């Protein structure tokens, strides 16, 4: 995963030429992703590309293309005195994502800490290595967006290999951010014209940005001092214990390992998404459950994102995309909850 930033002049590319590049990506047999309403989808026809910077983020992030919701990690065969393990061939196809929101683009950089901490997860790493993120400046924001509160912004290039800024209806400023981005775009350099940084700067400087809703270092401190706070009961009463928030999140990464038998002698071991709001997430075989009630589970979610991950990896486990809140069936708003992580609030809900 090369994320070394490189210094390169800004370029300009027309929309038509951008589509030509996309067409070539598809024709070479690679996967091209574009954001949709519900999910990111694989593009078969470039006329279906979504390059609208003002679009609402899709309901589901694109993490499933790097960290699938379900995948086999090994196959097994049992015989009388032996168990034979068979490795899985990891699909190493190149995946290009065009039009990633800045809040999505940085997701792999945040998740890679976890997948390379005590064990190097070859499944995640192999896909991340072959993943090219072409970010697009974002001009959407609603009451749920809070990227600016977690160290990002609608014009953040963090996590993008190439970053696009719409200059007018037909042209984009293109910034080549990483070596991987440079390597990807070099064969297409004929399409690129030299750009003017001042022109794109004028646009990025004038993008409406969500107000900063909270100070993450204060939240960090409050969480450390209020583990046993009765305030968690409010949101604990409301939350219905589904995993919508975790599964649409671009950086939630918990998984469960389970075996699936095909027959008495053969089967496979699966790695499946899991969510910390499920009651049985921490249920022990003994029957004991350390997070037996919903308020403890919600407390875990907030602590993991804004305290534990910071302790362990130095980054907040949140990109401020607001998906979890926008989609929450009972409208639990993480921005509101985290903003209220201070002493003068009566209850978190």
């Amino acid at each position, binding site marked *: 995963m090369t994320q070394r930033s490189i210094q390169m002049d800004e370029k300009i590319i027309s929309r038509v030429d951008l589509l030509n590049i996309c067409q070539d990506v598809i024709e070479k047999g690679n996967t091209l992703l574009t954001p949709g309403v519900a999910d990111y989808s694989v593009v078969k026809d470039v006329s279906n590309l979504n390059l609208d910077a003002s679009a609402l983020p899709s309901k*589901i992030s694109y993490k499933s293309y790097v960290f699938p*919701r*379900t995948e086999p990690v090994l196959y097994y065969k049992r015989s009388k005195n032996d168990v034979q393990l068979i490795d899985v061939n990891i699909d190493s196809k190149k995946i290009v994502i065009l039009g990633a929101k800045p809040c999505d683009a940085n997701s792999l950089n945040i998740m890679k800490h976890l997948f390379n901490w005590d064990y190097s997860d070859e499944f995640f790493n192999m896909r991340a290595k072959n993943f090219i993120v072409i970010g697009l400046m974002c001009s959407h924001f609603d009451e749920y967006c809070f990227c600016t509160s977690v160290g990002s912004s609608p014009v953040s290039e963090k996590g993008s290999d190439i970053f696009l800024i719409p200059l007018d209806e037909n042209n984009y400023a293109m910034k080549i951010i990483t070596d991987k981005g440079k390597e990807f775009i070099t064969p297409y350099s004929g399409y690129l014209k030299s750009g003017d940084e001042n022109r794109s700067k004028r646009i990025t400087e004038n993008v409406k940005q969500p107000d900063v809703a909270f100070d993450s270092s204060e939240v960090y401190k409050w969480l450390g001092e209020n583990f046993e706070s009765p305030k968690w009961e409010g949101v604990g009463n409301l939350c*219905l214990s589904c995993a*919508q928030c975790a599964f*649409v999140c671009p950086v939630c990464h918990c998984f469960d390992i389970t075996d699936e038998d095909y027959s008495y002698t053969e089967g496979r071991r699966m790695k499946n998404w899991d969510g910390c709001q*499920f009651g049985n997430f921490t249920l022990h075989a003994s029957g004991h459950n350390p997070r037996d009630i919903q308020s403890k589970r919600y407390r875990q979610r907030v602590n993991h994102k804004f305290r534990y991950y910071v302790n362990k990896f130095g980054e907040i486990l949140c990109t401020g995309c607001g998906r979890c809140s926008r989609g929450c*069936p009972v*409208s639990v708003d993480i921005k509101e909850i985290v903003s209220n992580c201070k002493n003068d609030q009566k209850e978190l809900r």
Partner: protein
Amino acid sequence: MKELIKHARELLENGEVAAVIGYRQVSAKRTKPVIITDPEETSALVFNEYCLNNLAVYLTKARIKLLCKKNDKVLKLAITAKPCDVHSIVALIQENQIDRDTIHIISFNCHGVAKDFGFDFNGDNLASKCITCETHKPLYYDALFGEVKETPQASDTALARIKEIESMPHNERFEFFKSEFDKCIKCYACRAVCPLCYCQRCITDKTIPCWIETSSHQRGNFAWNVIRAFHLSGRCTGCGECDRACPADIPLSLINRKMSMEAKNLFSFVSGRSLETPTLVGSYNEKDNNELFM
């Protein structure tokens, strides 16, 4: 709104109820559930076209039932419910999950709600269930507020879609459901929002033996969505919350509505409409239609 707030306040102040489950406004076109125990907070209560949640889902939660226990006494629980949410409450009472005497139903004359938060309330954005709604006035209530207003006109596109799916050849229909269920990410939001998915332990959480594969692959997704459809057949009251909650936009209410249509055609039964009739699954009649048995 004033009447609602006054009523809720009195209930709490007089110690008649332990808590009021209602809606509060969070932005112009969005409300969220709120559980109020302090009379001062009742001023936040609202009822309007953006009260989408079916709050009956909270009635079976152990933590909410706990709120009602005060000094060895068990107090009532007040709930604000749209007429269609009252259907869910009726179904829960019929299935012995809650006791009618412990619930204080605050209901409204309803002319429909928006299909989702953020949409203008009009015929184009009317919730699917409101298009064919016949109960603008609740069938059961302890307090009733609001005037009857006209529901915006809209065409029943969901029914047209059901007819279309019904008319598909078998393999085409299978492909349709395959492509829809492929989108499922198994977040179980559909289960979480459903008032009638009240099992303490869902079949999909059982691992020994593992009846439903937890993997969100085609087989696992089919198993989950089909078993949910079966478990809700003749029980679903059509609140449409699963549809709204699904992050993958799977049209779950088409399946549930189709099953409800079957229950009505075969057994003349509509779930959650009467406290006097037994449940469909819980009753047996020799004269029942047996076309379904092979």
